[in-house]
């Protein structure tokens, strides 16, 4: 019996004993009414919340069907996937908290993971239960009203995993009666949403090659789709799809093409075998064209182009895939032959405005890309932060690396720095203001390069980067951008670069955090700060919103705690 199964059994015992004692589910355990009554109470309380009118029509505590995921907009009280909807908008139609009352927000409860390191989760909320993850592959289900745990799970990880950038996890996917976790030892696990018991556990790949999972998977139809991390180890990147019921792998899309496949010619010699191109942020999905969009990360080694001459497809690329088969429909490469670790692993956001069917990405390389979603053709690319790596564009309008932009042995100053003009933290698109909001980082670094021999499972950077010696400190900003033009509408300056994502809501609000520990509510139209709360630790996560008992909550992870806020 594996260690995780032992843990699962323990969890099962604890939960079942608790359930026997209570003879009821989580709602009743908190001394509250059962779901049908709950619904009536909600109905009474929330009539003013037009957006919540369908609250009880979806069968509270029912299975999360693929149709419910498609219709996530009909369940504003729930947060059914990492970005809130398939379009990747991270937008909540709840409006109880709005520009007129946001100043009165108060903390309602906090949940402590009791773990160190970066806490990057965006929780899901389904019918009153919050499902989150934590450092070291923790997962948990909480009563969304009180934060009290229903079950808690922690994977027993091998002692020799060495994930590059923290023992982090960004969240779960839910489908049917299961939640899905990608682990730091490169397994994919289905947990029983009611108990936390492990239902299936499959090995995606041998973690000792430097592979891991850190992202929240994406559930589409009956599949669980996720991409691998490991761009610092010379992996061969891929995106996998698993049958949600059985864990059987249905397809794998390798992000570096093998001999005979299109794009293979963009790699020198055998460099494709260790070419990196991970896919460590959750993709998006357009049901109308049945296309799922996945951005990929840097080619390996990240800071050395010598030895992998060529564009290095499909590194730093937006992939349009058929979710049923994993077949590539089109691709768009943001940074060709990258030497600055400019992973394109930002959530690609689907935006429709009139006749425009766009997919937009504020890329780590500092450019805001507007792409025709049907064809993958670039419409425009303009900087949204300071950029020096590129000073010109090719015939298609793509930024190309400047002659003096490459790393050198002793180091070469380039903007944006290695952490990028933004990073994995989510942007948001607000269909009311029609603006796109993104956390921008104004930091330039000194990039060095040196030869390095590849050894499986070992760090494979080809040297490093350094903070530059500029007199002025690094800073950051929350920026509001017109996604049809790339034009900057407003910005709020952060004292230092932050790793917080952004949430927008129908209350006319945008929520985001900063490295100084503040979590803030902004007026979406103007950027005016309406409220702030000091969390006591930098925010390394993307916020979300849900509703319970007629009350809207906003949740964000900071330090080792998941905080929730609501009106008094």
């Amino acid at each position, binding site marked *: 019996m594996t260690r995780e199964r032992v843990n699962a059994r323990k969890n099962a015992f604890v939960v079942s004993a608790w359930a026997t004692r209570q003879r009821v589910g989580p709602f009743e355990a908190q001394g509250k009414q059962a779901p049908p009554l709950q619904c009536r109470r909600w109905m009474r309380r929330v009539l003013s919340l037009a957006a919540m009118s369908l609250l009880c029509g979806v069968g509270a505590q029912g299975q999360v069907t693929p149709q419910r995921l498609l219709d996530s907009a009909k369940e504003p009280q729930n947060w059914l996937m990492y970005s809130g909807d398939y379009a990747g908008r991270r937008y909540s139609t709840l409006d109880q908290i709005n520009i007129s009352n946001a100043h009165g927000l108060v903390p309602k409860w906090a949940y402590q993971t009791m773990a160190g390191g970066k806490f990057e989760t965006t929780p899901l909320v389904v019918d009153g239960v919050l499902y989150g993850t934590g450092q070291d592959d923790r997962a948990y289900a909480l009563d969304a009203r009180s934060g009290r745990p229903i079950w808690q799970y922690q994977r027993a990880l091998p002692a020799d995993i060495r994930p590059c950038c923290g023992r982090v996890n960004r969240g779960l996917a839910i489908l049917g009666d299961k939640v899905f976790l990608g682990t730091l030892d490169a397994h994919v696990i289905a947990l029983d949403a009611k108990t936390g018991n492990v239902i299936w556990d499959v090995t995606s790949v041998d973690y000792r090659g430097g592979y891991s999972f850190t992202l929240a998977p994406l559930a589409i139809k009956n599949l669980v789709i996720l991409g691998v991390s490991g761009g610092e180890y010379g992996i061969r990147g891929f995106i996998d799809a698993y049958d949600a019921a059985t864990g059987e792998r249905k397809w794998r899309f390798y992000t570096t093409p093998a001999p005979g496949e299109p794009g293979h010619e963009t790699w020198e010699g055998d460099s494709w075998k260790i070419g990196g191109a991970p896919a460590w942020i959750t993709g998006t999905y357009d049901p109308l064209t049945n296309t799922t969009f996945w951005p990929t990360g840097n080619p390996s080694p990240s800071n050395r182009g010598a030895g992998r001459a060529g564009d290095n497809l499909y590194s730093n690329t937006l992939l349009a895939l058929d979710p049923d088969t994993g077949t590539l429909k089109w691709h768009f490469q943001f940074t060709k032959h990258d030497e600055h670790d400019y992973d394109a692993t930002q959530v690609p956001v689907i935006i429709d405005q009139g006749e425009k069917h766009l997919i937009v990405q504020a890329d780590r390389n500092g450019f805001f890309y507007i792409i025709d979603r049907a064809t993958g053709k670039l419409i425009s690319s303009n900087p949204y932060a300071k950029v020096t790596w590129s000073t010109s564009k090719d015939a298609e309008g793509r930024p190309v690396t400047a002659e003096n932009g490459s790393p050198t042995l002793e180091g070469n100053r380039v903007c944006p720095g290695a952490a990028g003009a933004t990073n994995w933290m989510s942007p948001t698109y607000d269909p009311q203001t029609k603006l796109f909001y993104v956390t921008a980082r104004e930091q330039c670094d000194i990039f060095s390069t040196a030869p390095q*021999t590849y050894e499986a499972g070992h760090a494979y950077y080809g040297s490093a980067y350094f903070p530059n010696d500029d007199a002025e400190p690094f800073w950051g900003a929350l920026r509001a951008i017109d996604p049809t033009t790339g034009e900057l509408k407003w910005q709020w300056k952060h004292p230092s670069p932050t790793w917080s994502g952004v949430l927008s809501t129908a209350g006319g609000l945008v929520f985001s955090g900063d490295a100084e520990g503040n979590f803030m509510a902004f007026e979406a139209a103007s950027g005016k700060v309406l409220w702030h709360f000091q969390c006591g630790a930098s925010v390394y996560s993307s916020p979300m919103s849900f509703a319970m008992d007629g009350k809207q909550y906003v949740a964000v992870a900071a330090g080792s705690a998941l905080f929730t806020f609501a009106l008094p």
Partner: protein
Amino acid sequence: MFSRTRSDLAGIRFLPVAATCLVVSLLVLPVHAQDKNPFAGDAQAAKVGESQFRANCAFCHGLGARGGGRGPDLTRAQKKHGNADADLFRTINEGVPGTAMPPNGATQQGVGMTEAEIWQVITYIRSVQKKAPLQVPGNAAHGRELFYGSAACANCHMVQGKGGRLGPDLTGTGSARSIEYLIDSIRNPSRRLAQGISEAMKEFSQEYETVTVVDAGGQKFQGVVLNEDNFTLQMIDTREQLHLFEKDKLRSFEKTRESLMPAYDERMLPEKNLQDLIAFLLVADSAVGGGQ
């Protein structure tokens, strides 16, 4: 047996029982490194170690291990936290509590290193390390007199608990910064204020920016920033009083990166005295620094 390298482990993976026992043991028992570097003097290992160093250490310790504004110059023969191979291994693997030196793999920035890789890094450090202990021409005893006397450093800086607290405590600075950096910080303190590491280690990021505020009552305070966010300012004024202000309640707020510390040019601090002061800072954390 607990110092096995990754490749050693791979060699026994076909013995499932032994491997399981080893893994279980590793999980249960603390790992004790061997005392001697298995790669000592191996030029090839030093080369591999340089790659690891660039990826994992150079961020603070600089290319070539020459140190800089964030981490000690490791080419010095004498290492602050122990000079033996086992000391270096411990320092790298476990970090130095209370300092910016994190345990191996815990920076949340780079990758962790295996034991073999740590030894390779140590082999590299040995290959660039100077043979003789650091010799500086200055007179540390006279430097101490200057520090507490005519140069007036102690008005704002502390060594071993004695002195002011407006500026950084300099007890460990001599061993934590390169000599070039120390000289630059004295001759031209505003060129680079004290450097933080990164926001992942916010606790080390005080940069001693100069701040001047006028509160709602019209009272003026000047000093250095201790903590600041978009809404609040925590500062120490020139009388070493701690203040917390809400920015929107201030009448005025001005912050500059022009240091409160005067630039000690040749006239204020002749070259000879500068050398003496450097000599003092280099031993500030020893008994000499404490005046014994």
